[in-house]
Each structure stands twice: as C-alpha cells, then as structure tokens.
C-alpha cells in the first residue's frame, strides 16, 4: 500500500522529464525500469487498477465522500457515516431542485351497465420539499373528473399541505392540512395499491375518503410493532337542511379546509400494530364536538372502527368496520344517528417476474343517511369481484363486476375497467 505514492511519483517524474537532451535509448531504459517497478508492485499488492489510495494523515479533515464517485480503501466510521447521512447526499442541502421531489398518480375509469361513463377520475401531483433533514413540506394537488370550473363535473383540490417535523426515537409531528389516520384507503390510495376500479362504498359514505383537515398531529412508532397517531384538527359541517339531498350525510360535511368553520373542532386517534409478519391491525376514532355547526342543537359525533390487513404469500385479506354515532334529535328523527358499514376482501395474486396478476372478491354492507326525498342513502349490500394486472409495480390494469343491492334505491350492476399509475 505504501509503495503506491512512490510509484505515482516515478510516473509523474517520467511524465514531467524534459524531452530535450534525452536520447531514445535513455527513454527506453527508463521505461524498462518503470516496468520492473510496476511488476514488483503488482506482485506484492495485486493489479494496479485495484489500487486504493493511502490513508489520509490523521491531522487532515475527513471530507464527505460524494456518492457518485465513492472512495475506496481504508475508511473511518466518520467517512462512512458522512457518505450516507450527509444532508447533501440525501437531498437535504444544496439548491432547491435537489431538495424537491415530484410524484404523481392517476386513474381512468370506464363504467358499463347501469352506469355508462368514462372518467379520468383522479389526476394527482405531489411536490415535497426538504427544508432540512428533519423539516419537510408535503403537498398534494388533485384534479378530479378531468374538468373543473363553474358547472363542470370536477374540482381542483389541495389535498395535503403540511410541514413535518421528525424527532428522535420515531416521534413525528405534522402541522397543516393533512389526511386523517382513519380507515385503510384514506392515507394510501394510489390505484396500484388496492383492488377494484372504484373505491368501496364504506370508505366513501361512512369514512368520507379522501378526508383531510387542518390542524396538528403527533405520531410515534415503537420497536415492538405498536404505534399511534393523535391529532387535533378542524371538523365536519354536516347539513341538517331537510330540503337538501345532502342532509345528514357525513361525506357531504367535509369542509376541505376551504374557508371552513372553525367554531368547533375535532380530534382523531389511531392505534396501530404491525408486530406480526404480514399482519397490520388498526383501531381508530374520530370525535366531532359538533358535526352540524349550523344546527341549533348539540350534535356531537363519534366515529370508531378498526381494520385488519393480512398478506401471506399470494393470499391477502382486508377487513374494515366503521360506525358513526351522532347525537341530536334531528339526526335521530331522520334515521341518521347511526351510520355504519363493514367489508371483507379476500384476494390472491401470482407473480410472473416483474408482472403480477391478482383476483379478489369483496362483500360490504353499509347504511347511511337517506337525505331529503330518500335520494341517496339507505342500506346497501355491495359485492365486487375482479382482477388486477400489474405489468410493472407502478402501473395497474383493473377489471371488475360490481353489484349494489338496496331496498332504498334501484339495484345497480356495473362492469368496470380501470387504468392506474403512480410514481
């Protein structure tokens, strides 16, 4: 190892030798000497191309190693840590482009049967920025139904915009507009991560996915597999106007943090357990101080529920239950004081190299407020069977058959095709 500087010195001396006054014979002799030195060096230390630099003197300052050209040879613990923990390496410093990441997901749906429609349902772009290694911004903007504006079917929505502060020991605090830790799909709903073209009815009408609020939340993970999230945030504003088809409907009560009423607040709590291989369990609750602030009566409300997700090889199972209890005479009189639902979704997938094919069935039951004129809600049995095909991990093609039966509304049968992506 120590021979290397000497060898490099000889090479440099040769390279810098003046051409004047040196005969070809002398040059040939010098080359011969150099070849002998190289041969000796390689015999002792191996091929020259594998040579490693000599260690830096102890009084020099160790410089972080750029990832694109990692140094080899003797390394100190500080060298190794600097290479992987340095903020510049992980995108935590430097100019804003290095600290900013972009992502997106989208899904196109085709419905045939009792509903005949093609719709680019969601087009989402997210942009995140790292202010420092422990303070980050997360944002997500969504265009729903392709076209937004007055009289158009869609909306442009700010779905998330929060600052996250990462603390030691797995403590995380976020403040801003964030997705509530409720249900299975509310926080993670990229189309390539779930079965079925359309989201299930329970996580639309009982848990109003996608559901975001403004406030602050603290989360903590423990090494034994337990974790929790606890947030205080803005609340729902459900209509009790008896002339409205949205009356008493939880989903229609989302204010989306758009000049939202802040006279009453809400809080969410979720406990998580992932300590067993392949199994994820959650229990969650959301308390609304007054779910209908416009109503003169007290309408406190509590949502409680739980979810289980199990994966073993190709077999998967998802289960969820969620139940609202809403106080107040108006909700009770309109049969909207208890809105709840559950579903079970077994599935099986096969992998073929990078490709994956999965089949699933899902049965769900839910009941929610009928609203004025019994136009929307009621009691529903929802059955879906279908197939997902992933040509690569982040792209999915979906096909399913969905049957929704209800005593309150006409039965509905649809054949659905979907295309989704995320990155």
């Amino acid at each position: 190892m120590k021979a290397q500087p000497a060898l490099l010195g000889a090479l440099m001396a040769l390279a810098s030798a003046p051409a004047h006054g040196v005969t070809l014979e002398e040059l040939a002799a010098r080359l011969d000497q150099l070849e002998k030195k190289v041969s000796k060096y390689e015999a002792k230390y191996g091929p020259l191309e594998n040579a490693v630099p000599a260690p830096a003197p102890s009084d020099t300052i160790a410089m972080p190693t750029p990832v694109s050209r990692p140094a080899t040879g003797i390394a100190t613990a500080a060298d190794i840590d600097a290479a992987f923990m340095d903020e510049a390496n992980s995108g935590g410093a430097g100019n804003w482009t290095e600290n900013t990441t972009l992502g997106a997901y989208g899904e196109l749906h085709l419905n045939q049967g009792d509903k005949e429609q093609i719709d680019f349902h969601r087009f989402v772009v997210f942009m995140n920025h790292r202010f420092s290694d422990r303070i980050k911004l997360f944002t997500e903007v969504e265009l729903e139904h392709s076209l937004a504006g007055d009289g158009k079917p869609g909306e442009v929505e700010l779905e998330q915009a929060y600052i996250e502060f990462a603390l030691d020991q797995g403590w995380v605090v976020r403040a801003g507009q964030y997705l509530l830790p409720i249900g299975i799909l509310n926080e993670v709903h990229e189309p390539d991560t779930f079965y079925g073209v359309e989201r299930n009815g329970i996580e639309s009408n009982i848990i109003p996915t996608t559901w975001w609020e403004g406030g602050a939340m603290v989360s903590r993970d423990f090494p034994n597999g337990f974790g929790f999230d606890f947030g205080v945030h803005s609340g729902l504003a459900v209509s009790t106007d008896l002339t409205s088809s949205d009356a008493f409907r939880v989903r229609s009560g989302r204010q989306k943090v758009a000049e939202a009423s802040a006279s009453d607040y809400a809080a969410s709590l979720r406990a998580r357990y992932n300590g067993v291989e392949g199994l994820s369990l959650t229990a969650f609750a959301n308390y609304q101080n007054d779910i209908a602030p416009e109503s003169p009566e007290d309408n406190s409300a509590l949502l409680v529920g739980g979810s289980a997700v199990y994966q073993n090889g190709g077999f998967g199972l998802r289960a969820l239950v969620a139940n609202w209890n809403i106080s107040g005479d108006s909700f009770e009189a309109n049969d909207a004081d208890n809105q709840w639902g559950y579903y079970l979704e077994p599935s099986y997938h096969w992998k073929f190299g990078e490709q994956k094919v999965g089949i699933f069935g899902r049965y769900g039951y839910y009941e929610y407020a009928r609203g004025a004129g019994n136009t929307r809600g009621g009691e529903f049995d929802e059955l879906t069977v279908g197939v997902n095909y992933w040509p690569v991990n982040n792209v999915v093609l979906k096909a399913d058959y969905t049957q929704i039966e209800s005593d309150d509304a006409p039965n509905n049968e649809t054949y659905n095709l979907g295309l989704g992506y995320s990155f």
Partner: protein
Amino acid sequence: MLLTMKPTILVLAIASKFLRLFFMTAFLICGGSALGAPGVYQKPSDFVKSSLGQIPATRAITLTGAQQTRVRAILGKNYKSKAIRYWSAGGKTAYILEEIGKTEYITTGIVVKGGKIDAVKVLIYRETHGGEVARDSFTRQLRGVSLKVDSQLSKIPKNIAGATLSVRALTKLARLALYLETLK
C-alpha cells in the same frame, strides 16, 4: 356499547378553546424543537462494524454498461451511482444501498453470505409512511433469500398495508445486493 363510548382523550382534546390551543401549540413546540436526525435506526458505520466485526477497507464495484442494464431491470431505473461501495470480511459482504420509497431515499444495510442474504437492516428511513419496513418482523423475512435465474428473490416478503412502496423499495435493494454479489 363499546362503539358508543367516547374516548376521553378525544373529548378532552377539543373540550375547550384553551385545550385545543394547548394541544396544537404543544405539538408545534415539539416539532420546532426537534434536534435529532429523522429515522436513523443505526449509523452506517455501526452497521458495517456490527455485521462484520470490524470496518474493513472500502471496496467498490463500478458498473459496466451491461451491468447497468441488469440493474435497470431490477430497479426500473439506474442506480443513483455507477460505483457502489461494499465491505467484506469473514466470508460476508456488507452493502449499504439506497432506493426511494415514495419520495425519499431509504438507506438500507444488507449483508450477503454465500450468495444468500444474511441480514437486512433499515439504517435511515426518511419517508412519512411505511416505516414498518424497519421492523425485524419484516426484515427477517429476507434472511436466507437468494436470487433466482430471472433475478427475482427465491422468497417474496409479505406486504405491509400502508407501506407498499417501502416494501417494494427494500425488495428491490435485496435483489440488487444479491446481484452485486455476483459481480465481486
């Protein structure tokens, strides 16, 4: 009955303006006063030392064009650098590899012995969701796993709900480490 019981903490949290403000302010102060680095489960140097019993000389594999093509097939893109460090001692090789889960790099230590994965340890986790991949219950599924002819793992780890993208990232890194082992 259970479903109608109001969790006291939620009721208290928003019982009055004062308490709401207290909780929100407390959360923000906690966040603002954070001093540590996020999600550092183990320092990279500690991983090398604990895996190999020492910190051997750093070596590197410089990927050729053909090898980059194989890496692209595994990751779906080029690795972040052409040259990848590793450390070898006692028949084991330790790699520290990085891959993005959703938007952030997950720094992962992988030890390979005899063409099989000996250990996987998430060293630095920077994503918001999916930190469950750092738990032993997930990473131990990769122990003893080898690479099949089609560059897939001999055993696919079970997915974790809410951590799908992180599971994918770690699965890719396990495949990459086993492939790099064939290049040494």
